[in-house]
């Protein structure tokens, strides 16, 4: 029982972290029409910047400064990079962001080195929030949940209830019409890109000390975020939210389930013995294939529903 509750919390925390990354990626996708490969790289930059900034001014100022720096980096990438290659079509944009991944990774290695950073949870949040069935729930996870829910609400209000949100929604679907109505669409695109990078940076700040801040973190996070965006449906924020939470829960629960296929078959009176490949596969516990599950689910949804959960266009 305690495992279920603790995993539920952990899954929610991880799901919200995924959503912070995936929401920015989805918004940028709606605008560019291509996936931004370098999105998880911004997440990594956010974590490293937070580590460095927090050494000088402490964690809480870094929580604000690092995402803002990421937004500036994003704006620079859009204005001086993407906008120029945009004329050459989607493939050029895709390759541009693909190249960016390597540039960011090498730069991070050159500046901060190959080893993991000692980026730790701030002492003021390093205590146990409550204890359920003898298991401790760290306060920092509660804090992560709080920050990500706050960000979710803020983004929703911005998009649905303010003028800039209205113009963003308009420009995402019909940029030409929006510019024919007097809206500066290139400026809107820069704002969206910078905003997406801000969210990714924030995810990096609160995720960097939850996981580890090391040069491989973009590489390990990137594919999962892609899966979430594709699973939820390209261009759909609601679908992206559902997929993030679902994926967070699945990945958290998978590592604590020790049952194998064989255990599920046993109550039905089926037993398999022997030393062959078939038995081998059936006896693998779920925990060992946990990391595979998101990708397996993506393949399944792509085969049966290419639009994803709530997507508006085919993948």
């Amino acid at each position, binding site marked *: 029982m305690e495992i279920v509750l603790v995993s539920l919390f952990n899954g929610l925390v991880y799901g919200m972290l995924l959503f912070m990354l995936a929401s920015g990626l989805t918004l940028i996708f709606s605008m560019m029409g291509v996936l931004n490969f370098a999105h998880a790289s911004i997440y990594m930059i956010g974590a490293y910047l937070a580590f460095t900034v927090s050494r000088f001014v402490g964690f809480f100022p870094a929580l604000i400064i690092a995402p803002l720096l990421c937004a500036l980096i994003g704006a620079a990438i859009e204005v001086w990079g993407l906008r120029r290659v945009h004329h050459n079509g989607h493939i050029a944009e895709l390759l541009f962001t693909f190249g960016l991944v390597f540039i960011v990774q090498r730069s991070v290695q050159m500046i901060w080195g190959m080893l993991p950073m000692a980026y730790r949870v701030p002492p003021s949040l390093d205590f146990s929030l409550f204890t359920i069935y003898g298991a401790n729930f760290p306060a920092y996870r509660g804090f992560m949940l709080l920050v990500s829910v706050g960000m979710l609400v803020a983004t929703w209000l911005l998009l649905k209830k303010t003028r800039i949100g209205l113009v963003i929604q308009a420009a995402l679907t019909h940029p030409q*019409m929006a510019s*024919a109505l*007097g809206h500066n*669409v290139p400026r809107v695109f820069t704002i969206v890109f910078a905003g997406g990078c801000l969210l990714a940076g924030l995810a990096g700040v609160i995720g960097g000390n939850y996981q580890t801040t090391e040069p491989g973190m973009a590489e390990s996070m990137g594919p999962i975020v892609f899966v979430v965006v594709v699973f939820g449906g390209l261009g759909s924020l609601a679908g992206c939210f559902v997929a993030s939470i679902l994926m967070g829960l699945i990945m958290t629960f998978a590592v604590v389930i020790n049952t194998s296929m064989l255990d599920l078959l046993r109550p039905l009176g089926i037993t398999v013995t022997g030393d062959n490949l078939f038995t081998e596969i059936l006896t693998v516990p779920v925990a060992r294939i946990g990391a595979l599950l998101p990708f397996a689910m993506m393949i399944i949804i792509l085969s049966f529903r290419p639009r994803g959960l709530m997507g508006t266009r085919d993948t």
Partner: protein
Amino acid sequence: MSDAALALKNVGKAFGNLEIIRGVSLDIARGERHAIIGPNGAGKTTLFNLISGRFRISSGEILLNDVRIDGLPPHKINRMGLSRSFQITSIFHRLSVFENLRCALLWSMGYRYSFWTPLWLQRELTARTDAMLEDLNLTPRRDTAAGLLSYADQRALEIGMTIAGGASVILLDEPTAGMSNSETDNAVALIRRVSKGKTLLMVEHDMKVVFDLADVITVLVYGQVIASGPPHIVRANPAVQEAYLGALDAA
């Protein structure tokens, strides 16, 4: 100030070696309703894209109220008082009818990119949007997603969005394309009503609409103007009859 609201001076446009627009000169007088007709591929929509700033012109000059606008980005041209609609309906499908119109009004009411002022506090904006809805007979559909409107209502909404910003020069690209006869009659009445006091330039294939609405007709064939003038003179022009109206008269 000359009395031309919009003037094209020897405008040319080439894509690579392909010349689409070949030295078009046009003066569109203030308050005039001007129709551009011509066979498919004559360059009518390209001409619109040049005027509205979507494409850059290769040669010549375009003046809006005596100010050069060629080379400016579309949103700047719009802010100088020229607004256009698109041949393919380009409303924002997922937003409600009300939000579509509000989006069209935002800039002209000087709201720019304000992040923090919430939309629901802007009573004047809401009031003007509702007035526009009434004008377009779309009030019952105020909160419907624009994508769910009937085709004719979508086109009406787009015309509404085009004029909402208060532009003095309106470009309509085939406003009645794909409509039934009665829908077309309604659209013509709407265009006549909302273009009052404004300069209207439109591309249209429906000759009934053209002769009904236009004060001046320009015939474009292979990127060149072959005739321009009041409807009865253009209709009588032998070159026009040969190039374009011939088939219609025979029918």
